[in-house]
Every structure is written in C-alpha cells, then in structure tokens.
C-alpha cells in the first residue's frame, strides 16, 4: 500500500499533543493558581468543631459544690437539608405549630445562614429527648442533637450571688470581641458566673473533622494533628456558707429585702440573701425562657440582687458612724451629754426631728436608745466646727470619713451590678441651694441616716466589719481562691487591707459598748443570744413611694462576738412596718447563732425561726401590682415593659456598670426642686422599685 499520506501522522500527533497541553494548562490554573477551590473544599470537606470545656465548679467554704455541671441536649437544625422532613410529627413532639416552625426556621436562616447548623430548640426536656430519640431517623440529617453541659445548683440557693448563664446576644458579642465567643455560646450573665466568666469558661478546644456529602462528621482530619485541646474552667472556692445562705433565704421568704453576712477578718462574704429570690435551676434547662419572662415581669423583682443593687437610707444604723466621726473629731467625748425634750430644736422649731425617748443621754446610752437629737447635735458640731471656714469644707471633711468607711462609692465586690449609694456632697448642695445658702440645718436629717444619704446592704455589712475590726476592712468578696491560680489578678484587690482613718481603739470601744447595749437591753434585743456578745444597731427607715409614705424598712446590723468578731451582718426587711428591732434583729440573731454555733437547737429559737420564715411581709403595693399585671398580662409587649421601667431594672440586675446612670440618679435626687418631688421619690427613695423611664434598654428582654 502506498504511503501517500504519511505526513498526516504529524498533524494527528499535533492534535493529540496540543489538546493535552491545553488540558494540562487548565489543570495548572485550577490546581496551582486558583485558591478558590481549596477554600471551597475546606468549607465543605472539613468541619471546625468547637469543644466546649466544662465550666468551673463553685464551692462554698466547706468545699460543698454549690454550682456544677450536668448534660442536656440541644436540638440542632441545618435549614438547607430540611427537604422531606416530617415536619408534622416534629412539631407535635416539640409542641409547636407549623407556623411557629416556619418562623423559627426563617429566623435561623436570617441569623446563621442556610447551610450552617443552628440551635432549633435549646435544652430539651427529658420527655422531649426521649420522644425525639425514638423518631430521630425521620428528621435526620436536617436535625440532630448536640449535648451541652448545663449548670446545675445542688443546693438551689444563692441564685442571685451565683448568677446564671445564657446565650450571648449581639451586644455581648460586640462588647467582647476577640474572646472567642460566637452566637449561640453561653456566658455568665449575672452573679459570679458573670464576674468570673473568664476563669469559669475555661479554654475552648478546636477539633478538625472530615465531613462527608451528607454533612456527617466522619473522622478526624489528619488524625487530629491540627486540633487544640480544651481546658476545663477553673474551679472557684468561695467564702459562702451554703447552710447559712439557705437559712437566710428561708428567713426572708415572703419578704422584700436582704441579708449580707461578711467575715470581718477576711472580707469574705458568708451569705448574701436577696429576697425574693428564685430557684436558680429555673434559669437553666428547657423552660429557661418561660421562667425568665415570669421572673422578669414579677413586680417584686426577684432578678434584682438587692444586696448590691438596691440602695436605702441607712436610718439609725448610720448613727454608729456619726459617733465615730464625732469622737475622732473631738467635738464630743464619750461623756458628752445631750438631752432631748421630745425633738431636736437645734435648727428651730419647724419640722423638728422627734426622739423616742425623752431624757439626757451620753454617747453609749444615746446609741442604745438610738436618740435622734444626740446625733443631730453631734453632726451639727462637726459641720459647724470653727476649725473649718465654711459648711462646705466641713461637709467635705465629713464626706471623706464616710468614703473611708466604704460609703458613697462602689466597694468593688465581685458580684456584678453594684451600686455606689450616695453621700451628699457640698457640690450637690451648692447646686441645689446655691453657694453659701445652706448649712447643717438644711440637711439635718442626714445626721440620723435619712435624707440624701443612700447605702447598699453590702456597704452596711462592710461598715460593721470595719467597726468590728476597729478600723480596717477587706473589700467584701465572694470568691476566696481560684483553683490553678489567679491568672488575671482578679483577687488581688481583695488581699489588700484597707485602713482608712487612724481612729484609736478607745473610740471603737465606746461605740462597741453602745452597740452591745443595743442588743443586751436596747432596741435590738431581738438579736440577743446567750453567751455571745453581739454588737448591733437597729434602724427604722422612713420611705416614700411615688410621694406616698410607705411602711418603714426594718434594719438591723451588727457583728459578733464583740472581742473576736467572726461575722459582720446586716439585714433589711423592706416596708415591713414597725421598727428595726421587730423583724430584722431576730433574723440577724438567728443567722449569727447558726453561724457561730453551727446549728440552732433552742426550741424557742426554732419556733421563732419557723414563725419568721412563715411571716408574710410583702407590702400590699406589690400585691396590687401583681393583680394589675395579671389583668394586662396579655399585653406583655415591649411598650408595657418600657413604660414600667422593668427593662432598665433587669438590666441593672445583670450588671451594667454605667457611671452615667449614677450621675443621672444624683441629679434626679435633687430634693428641693418644687414639682420634682414625685419623680425624686420614685427614683430616690424607693431604690428597689425604680420605675425610671430613661434609657429604656431592651437588651435583656426575651421573647
């Protein structure tokens, strides 16, 4: 056969080679130059799984775990795989209707996108878990369950101190950039869960997994060489005495108010009761949302930690401090006597402050009977002391004492949302009355702890620790130590002894004498315990709500034993009526006995305990509010909440340290501005029920 067309073999070769070259070039761009496909492959073929370590456990002073972890599952959904899911049966298991189902899915798509999985139903109840487990095959792969560790409270006490964790919101994420939080994470929202979030959360680990086309995780990528390990959160050892806390909560049932007990030697908080409180496990688990909105709407404000977030006029408990200042300033001696013929006339006759016991008293006796006139005279002498050129500088001097005693500023306790309280300043009076247009008589009620002075229960307890220690204190704190070391220096400030003034022991002794007499034979006899020398002081605090006088707050504060103080304690029962000695003193007495003797055995005392714990002292105002709220329960909308000021309040409870707010409060508490009275009363005098209308922040409102 002739080979006519032999040259054509080269054409054919050329065709082969050129097409192969084109293919190789294309492969080069695809594999070497373009990085797009590598990213896409990583996106779909691998999965970055965050491993959540267990949060740290919190122990009380006897090493009982008071806050630990259990496991609950979340139902997760990946919206783009929803096709062909048996929606009806899922809805019936979860007890929702299809419209809700759709809405949730759409919300999640908006929030997290179609292909990423998000939490459809968090924290399933055991019943739902069991049902879902049976029929999970119907809902896979769009739905799956993910276990997560949830907080549990073995003692179901100290809810306000320990706080709760909740899903972080966008605001939280904005405030904590670069700390590894993503939407859907849980973080501490209140209490020490919040203040020690950094140590409790631990270090998250990351596992890289291979993922298949059904979005299932198949195996570790490269056998886990890129993974980082998770470290469990650090455990916290607190100074809380959980039994004391439980007793306090029992005693404060059906009351508004708080108890704070501090170990004066260390500043460690032994008990921190805010009443009413709630079952801490209410805010974990499947019913969290429902419970939250219930608590949130409760007019008695169970979410508010009254021990640090509510401020009151200290009333007569303030007199102990007045005595210290008077003695140290030398304007009185322990033997100085003032007499009261029925009222304090040092400022003339108008609106004279009455005293309960007529007669002539020395300092010790004046403390014992809580004589108003005596301490009005003391403060008048301090303010009118000729050593100061004006009331201005004298008041500044007085203020410095008060600041030293831990009043008028935040103490820096490790429980969030502490209020600073208020000590009236010259600047304030200058603003209200004008420079030089005011003197002691303008604010004479301050001398007996009424008027512009405001304190938190914690500040009062700390002040007792200061008096008990005769001149020093540690900043009160809940957490004593952190297991594995205090990496962030969070506990440093609690190790520093604070010695504000050099008041000699003799002065303290005099005040102690008076205070011991209060319990032995004075107004605070309800706190008396056999064989224990208790020093105490009652307070009966007048207060107003929306301009209407309310039943008095019952105050009692003290410490024991006198010579070797082991507990400094304060109790307030809001709007209980009667006197400080009536309710607060016996409560304190029982608390001290429990703490010092470890148990209460005396049948009479047990009887009293029983009676006190069953006593309902919730003011009728709250009941009225509850009834009113029931009638408008359907209007649980934001407008209502904002109008009621609940939003602001709850935000306070979750601890926004907003100095601006404090300033605003200060300006609002302008006492003498006519026409402003109503507002003042509602914001200033009723600290625990603050329907302020400003800064309505919906941040913590939940559907």
């Amino acid at each position: 056969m002739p080979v006519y067309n032999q040259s054509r073999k080269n054409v054919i070769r050329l065709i082969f080679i050129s097409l192969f070259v084109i293919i190789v070039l294309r492969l080069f761009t695809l594999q070497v130059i373009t990085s797009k496909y590598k990213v896409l492959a990583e996106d779909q073929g691998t999965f970055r799984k965050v491993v959540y370590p267990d949060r740290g456990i919190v122990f009380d002073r006897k090493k009982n775990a008071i806050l630990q972890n259990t496991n609950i599952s979340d139902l997760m959904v990946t919206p783009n795989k929803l096709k062909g899911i048996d929606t009806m049966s899922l809805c019936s298991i979860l007890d929702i209707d299809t419209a809700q189902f759709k809405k949730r899915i759409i919300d999640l798509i908006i929030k997290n996108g179609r292909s990423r999985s998000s939490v459809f139903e968090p924290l399933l109840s055991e019943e739902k878990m069991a049902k879902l487990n049976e029929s999970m095959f119907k809902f896979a792969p769009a739905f799956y369950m993910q276990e997560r560790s949830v907080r549990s409270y073995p003692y179901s006490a100290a809810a306000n101190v320990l706080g709760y964790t909740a899903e972080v919101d966008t605001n939280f994420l904005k405030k904590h950039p670069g700390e590894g939080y993503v939407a859907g994470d849980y973080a501490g929202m209140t209490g020490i869960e919040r203040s020690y979030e950094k140590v409790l959360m631990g270090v998250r680990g990351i596992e890289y997994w291979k993922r298949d086309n059904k979005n299932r995780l198949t195996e570790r990528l490269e056998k886990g060489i890129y993974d980082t390990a998770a470290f469990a959160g650090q455990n916290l050892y607190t100074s809380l005495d959980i039994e004391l806390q439980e007793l306090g909560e029992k005693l404060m049932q059906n009351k508004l108010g708080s108890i704070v007990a501090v170990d004066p030697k260390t500043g460690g908080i032994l008990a921190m009761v805010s009443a009413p409180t709630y079952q801490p496990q209410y805010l974990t688990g499947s019913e969290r949302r429902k419970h939250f909105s219930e608590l949130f709407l409760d007019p008695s404000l169970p979410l508010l930690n009254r021990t640090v977030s509510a401020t009151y006029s200290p009333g007569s408990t303030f007199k102990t401090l007045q005595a210290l200042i008077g003695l140290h300033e030398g304007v009185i001696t322990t033997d100085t006597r003032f007499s009261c013929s029925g009222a304090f006339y040092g400022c003339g006759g108008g609106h004279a402050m009455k005293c309960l016991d007529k007669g002539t008293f020395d300092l010790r006796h004046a403390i014992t009977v809580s004589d108003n006139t005596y301490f009005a005279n003391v403060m008048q002498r301090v303010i009118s002391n000729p050593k100061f050129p004006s009331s201005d500088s004298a008041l500044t001097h007085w203020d410095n004492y008060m600041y030293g005693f831990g009043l008028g500023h935040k103490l820096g306790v490790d429980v969030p949302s502490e209020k600073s309280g208020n000590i009236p300043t010259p600047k304030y009076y200058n603003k209200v009355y004008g420079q030089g247009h005011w003197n002691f008589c303008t604010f004479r009620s301050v001398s007996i702890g009424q008027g512009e002075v405001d304190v938190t229960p914690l500040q009062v307890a700390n002040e007792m620790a200061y008096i008990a220690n005769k001149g020093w204190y540690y900043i009160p704190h809940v957490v004593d130590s952190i297991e594995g070391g205090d990496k962030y220096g969070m506990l440093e400030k609690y190790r520093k002894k604070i010695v504000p003034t050099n008041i000699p022991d003799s002065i303290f002794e005099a005040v102690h004498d008076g205070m011991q007499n209060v319990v032995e034979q004075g107004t605070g006899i309800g706190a008396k315990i056999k064989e224990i020398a208790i020093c105490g002081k009652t307070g009966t605090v007048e207060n107003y709500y929306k301009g209407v006088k309310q039943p008095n707050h019952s105050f009692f504060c003290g410490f024991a034993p006198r010579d070797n103080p082991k507990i400094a304690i304060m109790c307030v029962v809001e709007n209980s009526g009667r006197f400080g000695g009536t309710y607060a003193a016996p409560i304190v007495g029982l608390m001290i006995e429990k703490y010092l003797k470890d148990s209460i055995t005396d049948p009479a005392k047990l009887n009293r305990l029983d009676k006190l714990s069953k006593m309902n002292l919730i003011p009728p105002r709250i009941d009225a509010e509850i009834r009113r709220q029931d009638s408008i329960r359907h209007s649980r909308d934001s407008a209502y909440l904002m109008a009621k000021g609940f939003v602001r309040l709850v935000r306070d409870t979750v601890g926004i340290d907003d100095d601006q707010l404090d300033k605003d409060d200060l300006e609002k508490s302008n006492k003498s501005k006519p026409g402003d009275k109503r507002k003042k009363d509602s914001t200033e005098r009723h600290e625990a029920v603050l329907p302020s209308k400003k800064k309505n922040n919906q941040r913590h409102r939940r559907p």
Partner: protein
Amino acid sequence: MYQKKNINANDKDWVIIWLYIIISIIGLLCIFSVEYRANENIIKNIMGLEKNYSKQLFFLVIGAVLATFILLTDSKFFTATPNILYIIGIALMGLTFVVGKNVNGSNSWIPLGFMNLQPVETCKIFTALALAKYLSRPETDFTKSRSQLIASGICFLPVVFSLLQNETGLALVYFTFLLPMYREGFPPIYLILGASFGVLLVLGLLLPPFQLSLGLTVLALMAIYFLKRRMKREKSILMVIVSGWVISVVFVGLAVPFMFKHVFQKYQADRIFSMVGRDNPYVDKDSSQVTAVITTTKKGKGDNENYNVKQSKIAIGSGGLLGKGFLKGTQTQGDFVPEQHTDFIFTSLGENFGFVGCTILMMLYLGLLLRIVFVAERQRSTFSRVYAYSVAAIIFFHVAINICMTIGLAPVIGITLPLMSYGGSSLLTFTILIFILVRLDADRQMVLR
C-alpha cells in the same frame, strides 16, 4: 506451529502493554481511594467482591485472560471476521431496544448477570475492525467519494442507534473515526469544517446570536480587505468568503437556536449551557405554563449536573501542586463528587496527587497515544494501520473529553476514562481494542489483508 513460532515475546509491543498495566493499576488505586474508609477489612472486601474496587480487580483479571486469549489467537482471525462482527455488533445494539436494561437513565445496557454489557461500547471494536477491513480492501480507492461515503457510513451507522438510545455522548465517539480516515486520505476539508463547526457551536453557546453575527461580519469584511489583491487575481475567493459568512451567520443565528429548541432534549440543552455557565436561553416561553411541572422536575436534574461539575472542580482544584496524599482527600472521602468511581475517577487522582499526579497521568496517556501512532506507522498492512489509528482516536477522544468534563471544559456526557473508570464494559472494551492492536502488531512482518 508456524504462527506459534511467530509469536515470541520480542514481537509484542511491551511499551503499550506496560502502559496498559500501569494505567489500569492507577485506576484501580483511584477507585480504591474513592471507596476505602478507615478500618475496613480490605482482604474480606476483595474476596467478597462487594466493593467496586474488588470488582474492578476481578474485571482486570478477566481482562488479562482475555488479553492472553487475543494474543494466542491467529491474527488472520481479525482480518477475516470484521464484517460478521460488525453485523453482530449492530444487531446487539438493536437488541437493546428489546431487552434493554435501564442503568442511570439509559436503556443501552444488556444485562449479563455479573455485569451489564453496553453494545455501544463494544461496537467501537467492531466498527474499528470493519473500517480497517473496508479501507484495506485492494479494490477500495479511498480517493473516490463513493468509498469515502461508504467508509463514513460504516462509522456512523452505530451513531444512529446511539442517538435512538439517547446516548448522545457515546455517539460522539464515532466521529473520531474521522481521524484514521483522514490519515488514509480523507480530504482535510471535512476535518476543518468539522472543527469550525465545533468552534462556531461553542461560540454560539457563549454569545448571543446577534453579537456573534456582528463579529462574523466584521471578520468577513476584514478578510475581504486584506485579501483585496489576491481577489483581483482569483475572483472565487470572494465567493468563498461571502458564502462562508452567509453559512456561518445562518448557522449561529438560526441553526443553533433551532437545535436547542427542537433537536436537543431540554435537559441536554440545560446540561450544555450549564457547562459554559449560562442559563438555557432557549426555553420555550409560550409553553412554559404547560410544562411548568416538567421543568421543575427537570430543573432538579439540571442543578444536579451543575453540582457534579462544581464538586469535580472543587476536588481537583483543592489538590494543589502535590495533592493531599493517598486516601487523604477530604472531598473524595466525603463522597462529595457524584459518580466519582466511574466518569469522575480523575477527580480522585486530582485531589490525592495534585497537579503533578495529573500531569504524570496525562503523560502516560499521551505516551500511549504516541506509541500507538508510532506502532501504526510501522505497519505494512493498511488493515493494521487503520485499526491502530482507530484505537488511538478512540482513546484520545475518551481521555480528552472525560478530563475536560471533570475540569469544566466539556459538558458531562458520560464518557469514561479509558482503563481507569470503574466498569467492566469500558475496561474490557479497551483491553480488547488494545490487545488486538498488540496482536496485529506482533504479526506486522506478515502482509495481512
């Protein structure tokens, strides 16, 4: 005895045989990497023939047996029987209309129990042999258009059957017989026309007809301008340009839209357009309401095709320069690429061994092709040469289209990667094709008819 003496090891083309073995083993390993998951009992799987890789191994063994048989067969058998084999092949294709088994939406399979036979595949062998037989007849004068027509007829008769069976992709394979025909003296104009037809078709897909016509007009005017002087001497050039322009414009303006509207099935058109990254513009809008239900179901399929190519590109693209390593490909292990063990087997190589691995495989294939061309050219008999070129052309078409498919340069038309894709039909077809060639080559000293 005479023949037996003739078949000694030295006469066989070991290069082709080794390339065959290497590529087949690479293919087997790729199939293995697609299916293997950690902690599997490989021995048990291989013995049990449960996994595709074990079946492929089994097919390779059958292939070896077949190859041995072919090498032991008298080469005269292949020159004597093409006509009857061709008729049998065509008959088998006809048989699929009667006993056809539906595999992946195509009826072109005949069930054989342990495997399914696809006559369109095997018929390639018979067609190659028949073409070789026809062209090697002493009385055939391939310069005559009558012979050219008959040769084309032999090649394109199976195409008709393929099209009837909705196997457009496999039908296209038969167009590669143009290459051996070209080698034997088929006028190149047909090759050029075919190529420009292809180019125009692709352009017709990429650009709207109006713009394309405008472009063609500009091209024609430029040609006239530059060829002005030559045109004065040869008037016919103007005619050629003008008629070429008219035909092109008519083709892209009318024929392409017509084809997409009326010739192709909608899913085919969608598939083709999805390859070039466009929506099918030739959806019949008038009947859209009537066919709404159908389109929605078909849409799913169109998306699926798009998904295949996308996943295929992701797998290959993520391989990088050196690849992720054997059995370490996340896309392969995660089953992201559909049909990865058959049509998309190249992706597992691309992901696991990267650009370097791909290039080496391409070199192996190119080596095989060039070796076959070399072998073809050393044949004394026309029969062997035509057959060798047919084998080269078929392998070339399969490799080029399959790989272009996986990297998004060609539409997904179900063409396997020779010797690598899973499947007995494909593997055995190529084994037979190649070993007949080796057998014929071993007897190249004889003048065969």
